[in-house]
């Protein structure tokens, strides 16, 4: 089998599995800090119960993120040596800064955040939570900077086929970086909001009416309701940025075969790349022109301008629609749940039942969005600089296929175990309710045991 397509599948599988967990930890760190600060301010132990339930989810997600992240750091060398050979001078420092400023920070203070509650003062524990949350976000900053540079490279010059840095500010804050970072951070916030809301709805359905359940439920639902309109706006701005810098990606997302004015918005279709047309299409006349150019006669780029250099149409068209569709569903669910929680102080059973599977809606939207933007970069690995096919390593296809198969089996099993533990933790919290013994929360630290004590 072809090592190129197998290596792409393997990288796709590894990074898809990996991204699930940072998407949770980036925002969950801040939610935990919120629980902690609410407790510090109100002395209400229900906040601390919510904290202890969700810090376990954080610990497990963090571990999954770390081990799959270690895999990523090796993948560059094992499967894509051409990547570092050609753009290592740019990618290297960005990755190095991620490791130095973010990875160590979060790893070192994670221990204190998870297990140090009785070892350090409450204030130091809160600080450790801040540092872990800050570390995960900083990590997102660096990796998004690198990813965005691959999409819209800037601030470099090519010497003998290798990229050399010229302006680091332009490299880090390349044209698509601010949009992508905002879009991803809010995506993380939504993923966590729906996870918390969904698992709290599961507790609600089992009859749990404890204070910690209400607090977690409200936090999840209200945060989602606030974030989703902001995300829709941020996504729209990100789309306009893509139109400016990567028009071929937009052409594929909209399945628009010919550049021109009065382009309809395609709601449903089966894009046929061989025939260069859409089958079974349902459209809104002039829709795409209106959305992208704010005028019915606006010119929308078509795939005909990029022969052989545009991404595959089918996955982009559908990836984008799955993301947007999930977003709209998120809007409806979070706003109606907000209505019932605010006005009726209860949750209708059908809505709660819908919220349980919606726990994973953030994952679905995030993955669909990432597939859209990453497949949308093809055939380039670094737009205009390096093609994916020129970076793949010399490893035999059979080796890549074997390892890919084992990775996939491993990831499926781990995902099942992970989701099983989430449900188990939620049901355990529901059973304990407000009766679980709350660990002593102290303002000052216990005395440190001396060595040899």
């Amino acid at each position, binding site marked *: 089998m072809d090592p190129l397509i197998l290596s792409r599948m393997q990288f796709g599988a590894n990074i898809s599995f990996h991204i699930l967990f940072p998407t949770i930890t980036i925002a969950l760190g801040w939610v935990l800090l919120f629980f902690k600060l609410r407790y510090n301010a109100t002395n209400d132990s229900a906040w601390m119960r919510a904290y202890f339930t969700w810090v376990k989810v954080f610990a497990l997600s963090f571990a999954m993120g770390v081990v799959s992240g270690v895999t990523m750091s090796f993948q560059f060398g*094992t499967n894509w040596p051409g990547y570092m050979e050609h753009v290592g001078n740019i990618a290297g420092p960005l990755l190095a800064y991620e490791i130095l400023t973010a990875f*160590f920070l979060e790893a070192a203070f994670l221990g204190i955040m998870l297990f140090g509650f009785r070892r350090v003062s409450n204030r130091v524990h809160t600080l450790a939570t801040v540092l872990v949350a800050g570390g995960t976000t900083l990590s997102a900053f660096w990796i998004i900077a690198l990813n965005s540079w691959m999409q819209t490279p800037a601030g470099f010059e090519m010497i003998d086929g290798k990229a050399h840095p010229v302006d680091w500010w332009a490299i880090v804050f390349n044209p698509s970086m601010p949009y992508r970072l905002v879009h991803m951070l809010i995506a993380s916030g939504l993923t966590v909001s729906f996870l918390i809301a969904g698992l709290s709805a599961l507790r609600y359905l089992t009859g749990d009416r404890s204070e910690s359940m209400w607090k977690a439920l409200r936090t999840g639902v209200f945060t989602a309701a606030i974030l989703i309109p902001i995300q829709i706006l941020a996504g729209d701005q990100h789309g306009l940025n893509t139109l400016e810098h990567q028009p071929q990606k937009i052409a594929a997302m909209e399945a628009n075969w010919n550049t021109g004015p009065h382009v309809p918005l395609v709601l449903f279709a089966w894009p046929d790349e061989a025939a260069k047309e859409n089958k079974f299409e349902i459209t809104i006349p002039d829709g795409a022109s209106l959305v992208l150019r704010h005028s019915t006669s606006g010119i929308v780029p078509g795939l005909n301008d990029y022969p052989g250099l545009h991404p595959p149409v089918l996955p982009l068209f559908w990836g984008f629609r799955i993301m947007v569709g999930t977003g709209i569903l998120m809007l409806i669910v979070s706003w109606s749940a907000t209505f019932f929680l605010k006005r009726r102080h209860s949750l209708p059973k059908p809505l709660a039942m819908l919220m349980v599977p919606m726990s994973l809606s953030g994952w679905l939207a995030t993955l669909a969005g990432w597939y859209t933007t990453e497949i949308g970069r093809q055939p380039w690995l670094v737009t205009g600089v390096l093609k994916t096919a020129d970076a793949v390593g010399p490893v035999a296809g059979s080796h890549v296929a074997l390892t890919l198969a084992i990775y996939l089996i491993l990831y499926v099993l781990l995902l099942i175990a992970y989701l099983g533990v989430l449900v188990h933790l939620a049901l355990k919290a529901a059973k304990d309710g407000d009766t679980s013994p709350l*660990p002593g929360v102290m303002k000052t630290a216990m005395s440190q045991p001396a060595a040899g004590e």
Partner: protein
Amino acid sequence: MSFDWPTALPLIFAGLMGLAILIYVILDGFDLGIGILFSVAEDAEQDTMIAAIGPFWDANETWLVLAVGLLLVAFPMAHGVILTALYLPVFVLLVGLILRGVAFDFRAKVPAGKKHRWNRIFFLGSIIASLAQGYMLGVYVLGLDVGLGGIAFGALVALCLSAAYAAMGAAWVIYKTEGELQKKAVAWLRTALVVTALGMAAVSLATPFASPRIFAKWFVWPEMLYLSPLPILSALLFLWLWRQTFHLPKPDDRHALRPFLTLAAIFALGFAGLAWSFYPFVVPDKLTIWQAASATESLAIILAGTVVVLPVIIFYSFYAYRVFGGKATDLTYD
């Protein structure tokens, strides 16, 4: 000779990478070792052993990411050559690291009946990762030779390194626990030391035959004289540690950290010897550190960050170890 950055920077980064690998081997060495010792520990002991490494393992493993990261960013050519040649062993290592990393967390969160399964996965992941690291080291020493001889040599180093990790794990248990478990750990340490010593002897005997190049680098006059402290000091430390094990644990638990520090020193000496064997190559006989290095301006900006951040990392790592100093108690989230 004037100081010029294009010559100095790759050298500095080779040093930093070596340091990161050494710190990784020592730190993750003890928690991988504890995973290996899981196979001979009782259920209750396993909880204490986990508590002894729980707050640290994550940061320990980050040193591996830094080491690979430095290889990736400072020597991109070498990164590609080494990792494509070691494709399958790297994969095995990663599967091992994934399994043990998640088992660590799963065992504490799954319903009680399933805990046993994750304990076994923790052991399996640890031993797989240790063996893979040793195998990769062996193959790398031979210049990425993956012939029959290379595989045999790699297997030998794999056993040796796993035994050494088990010794580190036992030494850490001696430091972090007390009572019956501590006594048991002394016995584990002795067994692991015997296997490590046999393995080291076999590896030392095999190296000159397996790699005439390394043999030539060591056994020429006068280098032999300058290098002689390395093996002699290692041997003395080893014997001293062996004698110590008869008196452990000491009254009032004095010097409980000493076996661990001694082993760390032996690792450091062995590492210095390895570094000498390779210098100036980063891919044995193929790429020197200068040939494989990134552009000077990229290395400079990484170095600037490293000089500022590394001391901070070392400072807060010490702080984290201090917070969880003393004997391991039950690990709880609250």
